[in-house]
């Protein structure tokens, strides 16, 4: 309860700000319309108009909320929860690419981190490329990945997942290298006194020590994966997915649709990152590390 008051206060402040911004941004259009019709607007009428336009510059919160409800809950009630107009359907499309890309990126990231920690040559040769890969803007490289993969006959889920992977492996590499190197020299010496093999040291010391680092990286990687999947939907002219909804919305000036897709994407990210946080809490608790 004590946490609820500040949270609600901030939420209310944000909503107030949003409504105010909607008035400021949409007023011009409302005024123009009125002038063209040869009428003048009273202040209440102006405000009411700015909050209920069809294609506002900035839709008001309740407009976005209504749109989201119409494309999610309402459709579920009608029994069409998974139709092609439903945001659940589009979220699922984006989620599947995100999840696949996240799994691939995590696997690649962990594999690279193990190579980097255990092999000096890999450390010297691969790490610069890993860093360089992240300096290239994803928007520049995403269309190329899609086009190249399309040329060899791969389309649909995989190209989008590749872009997700491209973005999500990086935090995992960085975090896991740090995590696998986190055991103290004394702990490594201790393993040596027991004449432990490299594999035993890895499974019993380095890997468990790296868990807190892994989970932190996974959270960042998951968010990056989602961005990657959405970006991957933009250049393909895809018809499904949250990215496609964003793109279609911007073609037709459907700002309400854009915002509802954005909010849906943010919610999806929050849920996915929250899930990792949950797994983290349970795992670390069971490991006695939290």
């Amino acid at each position, binding site marked *: 309860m004590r946490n609820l008051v500040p949270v609600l206060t901030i939420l209310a402040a944000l909503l107030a700000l949003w409504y105010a911004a909607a008035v400021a941004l949409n007023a011009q259009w409302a005024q123009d319309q009125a002038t063209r019709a040869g009428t003048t607007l009273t202040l209440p009428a102006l405000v009411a108009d700015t909050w209920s336009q069809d294609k506002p510059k900035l839709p008001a919160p309740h407009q976005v909320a209504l749109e989201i409800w119409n494309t999610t809950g309402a459709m579920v009630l009608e029994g069409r929860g998974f139709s092609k107009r439903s945001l659940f359907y589009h979220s699922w499309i984006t989620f599947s690419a995100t999840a696949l890309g996240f799994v691939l990126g995590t696997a690649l990231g962990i594999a690279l981190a193990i190579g980097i920690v255990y092999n000096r040559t890999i450390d010297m040769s691969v790490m610069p490329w890993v860093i360089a890969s992240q300096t290239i803007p994803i928007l520049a490289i995403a269309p190329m990945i899609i086009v190249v993969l399309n040329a060899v006959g791969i389309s649909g889920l995989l190209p989008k997942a590749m872009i997700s992977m491209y973005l999500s492996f990086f935090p995992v590499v960085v975090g896991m290298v740090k995590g696998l190197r986190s055991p*103290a020299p*004394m*702990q490594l*010496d*201790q*393993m*040596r*006194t*027991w*004449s*432990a*093999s490299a594999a*035993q040291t890895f499974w*019993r*010391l380095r890997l*468990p020590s790296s*868990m807190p680092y892994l989970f932190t990286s996974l959270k960042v990687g998951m968010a990056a994966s989602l961005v990657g999947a959405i970006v991957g939907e933009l250049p393909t002219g895809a018809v499904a997915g949250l990215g496609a909804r964003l793109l279609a919305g911007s073609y037709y000036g459907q700002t309400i649709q854009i915002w509802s897709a954005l909010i849906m994407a943010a919610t999806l990210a929050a849920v996915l990152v929250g899930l990792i946080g949950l797994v983290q809490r349970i795992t670390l608790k069971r*490991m*006695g*590390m939290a």
Partner: protein
Amino acid sequence: MSSNTVISAQNLSLTFQTGDGPVHALKDVSLEVEKGDFVSFIGPSGCGKTTFLRCMADLEHPTGGTLTVNGTSAEEARKSRAYGYVFQAAGLYPWRTIGGNIRLPLEIMGYARDDQEARVKRVLDLVDLAGFERKYPWQLSGGMQQRASIARALAFDADILLMDEPFGALDEIVRDHLNEQLLQLWDRTNKTICFVTHSIPEAVYLSTKIVVMSPRPGRITDVIESTLPKHRPLDIRETPEFLEIAHRVREGLRAGHGDAV
């Protein structure tokens, strides 16, 4: 070198190459440790006690002289798991229970499952921690954690125990108690123990042989054979015999310090 010699160092030297030039951590150190000996190493900070112990454990490589452990090289001794090493910090894994921590070296060395269980029980009894098997390290006091780390070094069949200031961070009372237990344990198991300490009473109380070292370069200045009986109640520390040995150790330390003190 008699057939009973467990550790033998001849003119052992170790020079660390550092940014500010070479550091002579050990120079011409010679020492024989017999089977069943309890040897304490005492000396001012930086005199190479830890370095010497780490050489025996093959964690550090001497740059001169010879060192044999159980008649073989230190590396072979390490690979044949000839010793247990107790570090200054307990170093228990937070994600393993006390039992799990003690089981760790046993798993690594491939002891059978039921043997592991029996050994964990036995050493926990030995260090008075019976009943704490399922607790996590953070649920134990510092002294209990240190005992658990000693139990871990005792769990496998190593005849040598190397201990680097294991009780350094503990208060007097706990320390006395652990000293007593350590002596009993040594008596019962007939292990050879090398023990680093900064405390003169501790060294005299525990040891059959006290090695006094001095720094820059690290070397042995005196080796004192204790005349105390094997059975030592705590109040032996008030006897004239004890005080005489302590006095000799103090003299050795002072001499090692040179004119500086």
